[in-house]
């Protein structure tokens, strides 16, 4: 067995495809704790509300594993990796590996200190299909829910529940929702849209206790003393790289598994990619876990190429967000709240309710928010990732019809005259 992959989501799927583009024969074994083919956790809210049919969840056609010659061991949890002995264990079962990719994803963080959290049936996290399936089984007996956490997962879950006809309240500890992806102006506009979708949001507060009888939730008590009636609680305060099983493995871990520009860990022939990995962030030059799809897939792809012998470099990731609530779309790039020593360009078009903000540092873009006007958004990604000096044409960036012709000729030539 030439290649072993732990995990079965975005990073793993793209790693398999990159390996196969380079090595059509080498045997691939893929092990995942979760049953069933690879699905998108980012579709779970649409699955929960019933707006998306089950078939839309899966990342690849059903013959993916067979077609790529992948031996998929699903429903088996790897609980230990021994880097020196080059083995991994699943309970009593031990397997040897030659080249290993760890793409074990993340685990939801459940904060300590909430009284009664473990005493009730209807407490969920929302990162896996099994959670969504359990929620679907319970949803009929519930008419209201509280979601703890106003980040992307919490808000999407809340919207999904609202679409399913449940009265939802989101409780967020910070002063505003989506603090990583949006600034206060944009968050306020998203909040307004969420209210229209039937999602109530409380900020600057948290749940201290869950109340109920005989395992059935009746309400939650907030830090402020306020009680909210509900029959279901979803904890979505954040995710952590899933690396606990690698303790004592010899693999170097900070918050996630530390990887170099080829997705290699500190140990030869062991690679890591996706939400469990801690790779380079392009603006700060630091290594940090960024649990988003485009980074997981890129890292998985780069890992796959390198494992199969092709020399491929990961240029570093950029934090990217495309959010959609109701009829509102927002795209954001980079660090949108870091305005220290920066020039901030802002425009809010009150008629169309569009919002655009660009943060410039040293003549380069370090953060962008585009709300209700996402056309050609990716051009900003190009300028950020290529560290293009935009000082000379920055007024163009703020045009609502900003497009390819507003870029300097040399940038256009670099973009459009060669294959990518």
């Amino acid at each position, binding site marked *: 067995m030439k290649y072993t992959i732990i995990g079965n989501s975005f990073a793993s799927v793209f790693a398999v495809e990159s390996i196969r583009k380079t090595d059509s024969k080498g045997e691939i074994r893929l092990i995942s704790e979760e049953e069933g083919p690879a699905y998108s956790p980012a579709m779970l809210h649409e699955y929960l509300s019933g707006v*998306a049919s089950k078939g839309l969840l899966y990342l690849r056609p059903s013959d993916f594993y067979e077609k790529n010659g992948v031996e998929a061991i699903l429903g088996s949890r790897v609980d230990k990796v021994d880097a020196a002995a080059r083995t991994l264990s699943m309970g009593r079962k031990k397997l040897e590996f030659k080249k290993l990719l760890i793409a074990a994803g993340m685990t939801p963080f459940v904060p300590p200190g909430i009284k009664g959290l473990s005493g009730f049936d209807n407490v969920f996290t929302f990162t896996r299909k099994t959670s969504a399936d359990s929620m679907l089984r319970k949803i009929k007996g519930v008419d209201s829910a509280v979601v703890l956490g106003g980040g992307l997962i919490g808000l999407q879950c809340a919207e999904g529940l609202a679409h399913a006809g449940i009265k939802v309240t989101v409780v967020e500890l910070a002063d505003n929702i989506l603090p990583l992806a949006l600034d206060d102006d944009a968050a306020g506009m998203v909040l307004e849209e969420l209210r229209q979708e039937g999602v109530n949001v409380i900020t600057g507060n948290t749940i201290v206790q869950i109340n109920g009888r005989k395992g059935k939730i009746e309400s939650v008590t907030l830090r402020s003393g306020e009680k909210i009636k509900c029959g279901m609680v979803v904890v979505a305060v954040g995710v952590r790289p899933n690396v606990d099983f690698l303790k004592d493995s010899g693999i170097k871990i900070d918050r996630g598994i530390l990887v170099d520009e080829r997705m290699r860990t500190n140990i030869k022939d062991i690679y890591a990619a996706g939400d469990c990995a801690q790779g380079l962030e392009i603006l700060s030059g630091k290594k940090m876990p960024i649990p988003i*799809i*485009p980074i997981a897939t890129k890292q998985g792809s780069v890992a796959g190429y390198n494992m199969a012998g092709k020399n491929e470099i990961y240029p570093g990731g950029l934090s990217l967000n495309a959010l959609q609530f109701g009829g509102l779309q927002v795209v954001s790039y980079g660090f949108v709240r870091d305005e220290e020593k920066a020039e901030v360009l802002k425009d809010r078009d009150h008629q169309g309710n569009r919002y655009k903000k660009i943060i410039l540092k040293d003549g380069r873009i370090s953060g962008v928010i585009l709300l209700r006007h996402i056309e050609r958004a990716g051009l900003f990604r190009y300028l950020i990732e290529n560290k293009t000096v935009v000082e000379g044409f920055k007024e163009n960036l703020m045009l609502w019809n900003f497009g390819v*012709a507003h870029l300097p000729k040399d940038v256009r030539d670099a973009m459009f005259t060669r*294959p990518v």
Partner: protein
Amino acid sequence: MKRVYPKEENCMNCRLCEVACIVEHSDSKDPLGAYFVEGMGFNSAAGEGIIDPADALEAGKPRPLNRISVSLRGYSSISTNCRHCSDASCVLACKNGSLYYDDAGRVRLREDKCVGCWMCLMACEFGAITRNPAAKNVPKVRKNGINHHCDLCPERSSPACVMVCPTGALVYEERL
């Protein structure tokens, strides 16, 4: 693989590439049919993104939207479309595998799968993806639509935009 490349010195902003694209992807394959029968004259490229595609959808079935568009500034213009990148950012960002490579290496869309999450639009460094309001797979989500990008006219030997360009501002060739 052959791709479409702009030659901007030759572009005179006539936008025939957009017209040819719309006609090629229409039911009638005829300009009059495509513009005045199939749709209501809605054109995303003509405005500045102010017209919400969903408004066009609500008013009736919009005609096919152009998959190539001319960007204009002063007297200079350039026509661009999907680069059909290898390891494309849009494919890497697609949240449910709706974007894929066909056997020829073109980036294609599974139209019955895309839910319009706009990860692709966020990811594409070339600004080559637009929103097509004529289709949707998640009925409850308002004002949405699905991914829309160049398909390199799979039924033609050379894409319609390249064939129609009167000044050679678009070329279809293999480059290294």
